[in-house]
């Protein structure tokens, strides 16, 4: 018996040992793979910053526009790749945002200048200075990255150690990699404070100015709650009214309610004037009884009732038993796309279950719609000859350079796909082309 136990134990030991060894090997393999991934990303990053530096240096020396555009395009592409490389590194625990902002700002600058026709509008003196500063900043980052790279290679540092330390919660100290990156980040912060990429270069997608100019008396928490209930269209009990925090672009109240059937709803409403910014009612509608068309009429009436004037439906879609509509301001015969809102309607009761109007308030202004320089027929000539135009209208859209421009909007198809194309009504330039998506086959 004893012999048997000994033998069994021995076998067990061997099995465990083999199992352990296999596990260890597998872990090693995975660690190696992860490490290679990190190493690849890191060395790519260093290389890309190298090339950004070289290419901006060349661009500074260039006189011919024919060369400048490709050089700027190249830098733009590289900033995007460098960005991608950073996102693959295990640096989530440490602030690396300044460096990323630097890459973002450089990308924006080079994109804007690269897509522009430099023959008609060459680099301004100021832009040339910006390019110079970009060159200098790239040099500094490059130097620091190289020194980190040197120590990584010299001391055989492993990114997986950094990742593991980060995963276990303690921020790794006395680590050359981390120190090096902290150094870079510090320098990048210094750049961003030097007024090189001013607001004119790196604009937020939409400015908050119009939002700040909204007029009206300041409302109380109680008034905010009353107003919110009017929008919800459900008999609800108010659970909380909270003020926004300091970083909000405009002070607002957040009103939260619970309806009689337990449906949660919440709304942001401006303190000044009580304008609705956004709201949703979390209710799953039962089987649809009203059509998408009737629902859009109800949504339209809802907007009119709450002071959104001259809005027309520009998009509609059904998701199960909910209709989602985009409404856009129409001034005479021109659609003003920047002033759009989205409305959700339940298709069982026809009740409004959501409104998103933040961009509308940010872009709302009195607009003088200029007379177009081109006729519609002239603008149409700018389209690809294989396209068949199905619908057309005049529209104001925000272009790549964040300017609102008057365009002719054409809905067109070429037999395989449909497109929405905006042709500048003065210059004939294709400001925007959107391929319109068709429904996706359901795999569910």
């Amino acid at each position: 018996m004893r012999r048997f136990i000994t033998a069994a134990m021995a076998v067990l030991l061997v099995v465990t040992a083999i199992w352990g060894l296999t596990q260890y090997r597998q872990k090693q393999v995975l660690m190696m793979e992860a490490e290679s991934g990190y190493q690849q990303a890191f060395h790519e990053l260093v290389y890309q910053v190298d090339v950004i530096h070289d290419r901006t240096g060349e661009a500074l020396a260039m006189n011919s526009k024919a060369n400048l555009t490709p050089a700027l395009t190249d830098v733009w592409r590289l900033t995007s790749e460098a960005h991608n490389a950073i996102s693959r590194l295990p640096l989530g625990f440490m602030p690396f945002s300044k460096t990323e902002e630097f890459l973002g700002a450089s990308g924006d600058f080079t994109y804007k200048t690269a897509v522009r026709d430099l023959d008609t509008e060459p680099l301004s003196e100021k832009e040339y200075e910006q390019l110079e500063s970009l060159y200098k900043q790239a040099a500094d980052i490059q130097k620091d990255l190289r020194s980190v790279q040197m120590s990584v290679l010299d001391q055989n540092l492993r990114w997986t150690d950094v990742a593991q330390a980060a995963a276990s919660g303690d921020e790794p100290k006395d680590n050359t990699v981390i120190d090096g990156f902290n150094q870079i980040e510090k320098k990048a912060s210094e750049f961003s404070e030097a007024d090189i990429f001013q607001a004119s270069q790196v604009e937020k997608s939409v400015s908050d100015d119009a939002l700040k100019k909204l007029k009206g008396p300041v409302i109380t928490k109680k008034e905010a709650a009353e107003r919110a209930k009017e929008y919800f269209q459900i008999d609800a009990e108010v659970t909380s009214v909270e003020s926004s925090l300091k970083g909000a672009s405009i002070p607002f109240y957040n009103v939260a309610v619970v309806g009689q059937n337990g449906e949660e709803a919440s709304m942001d409403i401006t303190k000044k004037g009580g304008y609705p910014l956004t709201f949703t009612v979390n209710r799953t509608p039962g089987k649809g009884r009203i059509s998408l068309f009737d629902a859009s009429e109800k949504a339209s009436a809802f907007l009119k009732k709450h002071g959104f004037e001259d809005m027309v439906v520009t998009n509609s879609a059904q998701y199960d038993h909910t209709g989602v509509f985009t409404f856009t301001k129409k001034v005479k015969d021109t659609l003003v796309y920047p002033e759009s809102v989205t409305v959700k309607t339940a298709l069982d009761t026809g009740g409004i279950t959501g409104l998103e109007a933040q961009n509308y308030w940010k872009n709302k202004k009195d607009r003088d719609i200029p007379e177009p320089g081109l006729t519609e027929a002239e603008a149409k000539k700018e389209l690809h000859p294989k396209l068949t135009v199905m619908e057309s209208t005049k529209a104001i859209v925000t272009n790549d350079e964040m300017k609102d421009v008057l365009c002719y909007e054409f809905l067109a198809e070429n037999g395989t796909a449909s497109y929405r194309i905006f042709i500048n009504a003065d210059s004939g330039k294709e400001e925007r082309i959107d391929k319109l998506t068709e429904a996706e086959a359901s795999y569910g």
Partner: protein
Amino acid sequence: MKWKKQIAVLLTITFLLAAKQAGAFSEQVVQRGAEGDDVIELQSRLQYTGYYRDPIDGVFGWSTYWALRNFQESFGLPVDGLAGGATKRKLEQASKYDEAHVKSQIRKGKAFTYYGGAETSAQSVNTPEGFSQNDIQLMANAVYGEARGEPYEGQVAVAAVILNRVASETFPNTASGVIFEPGAFTAVADGQIWLTPNETAKKAVLDAVNGWDPTGEALYYFNPDTATSKWIWSRPQIKKIGQHIFCE
């Protein structure tokens, strides 16, 4: 007088038949973006008359819209792209519709050519411009892993932060890039992202991709009770929803 009677009977029969046929379309006006039985019938009838050449998938998309407008133009109807009363009557006169056959084919997910050539696929679904069902699924996983105990608004908010990051120049440019950025989301680090999301999380994601942003363009959020990073406190704070503070 006998022939008059015969005509009356004939007319009655015709009317009855017409009424029976017309009974399939509901009384609703069908517009672009709609889904369901009326759309299946609309596509089938447009296909029968030769105006629609794409699969019958039950979603009123752009190709259905153009087909309907072309039909309206050829038949002297007002060209508005809406299938209202007059348009539906004209369609019923101009085409045949075997509801049982079409639906059984769609259920089977079979390609079939009964309606004049084009193949029919299984049912499709609407997805917001620029997003696939997989994008939405992945985001629902992230939202569920990060915020399943939060109020509905807080779940929409987490999805909105992911989208704000995609749009921001300081983050990767895809939803998957943002979600899997190492260290960005705790749900990714501890594997909770692989829990099966519920309907609420999916709804919250759909709201966010349709444009809802309860955060006021926030890029970060944190739980003030458990946050370990000092740096996160330096960001300008916009709003608190449930356990999370959202910041720029």
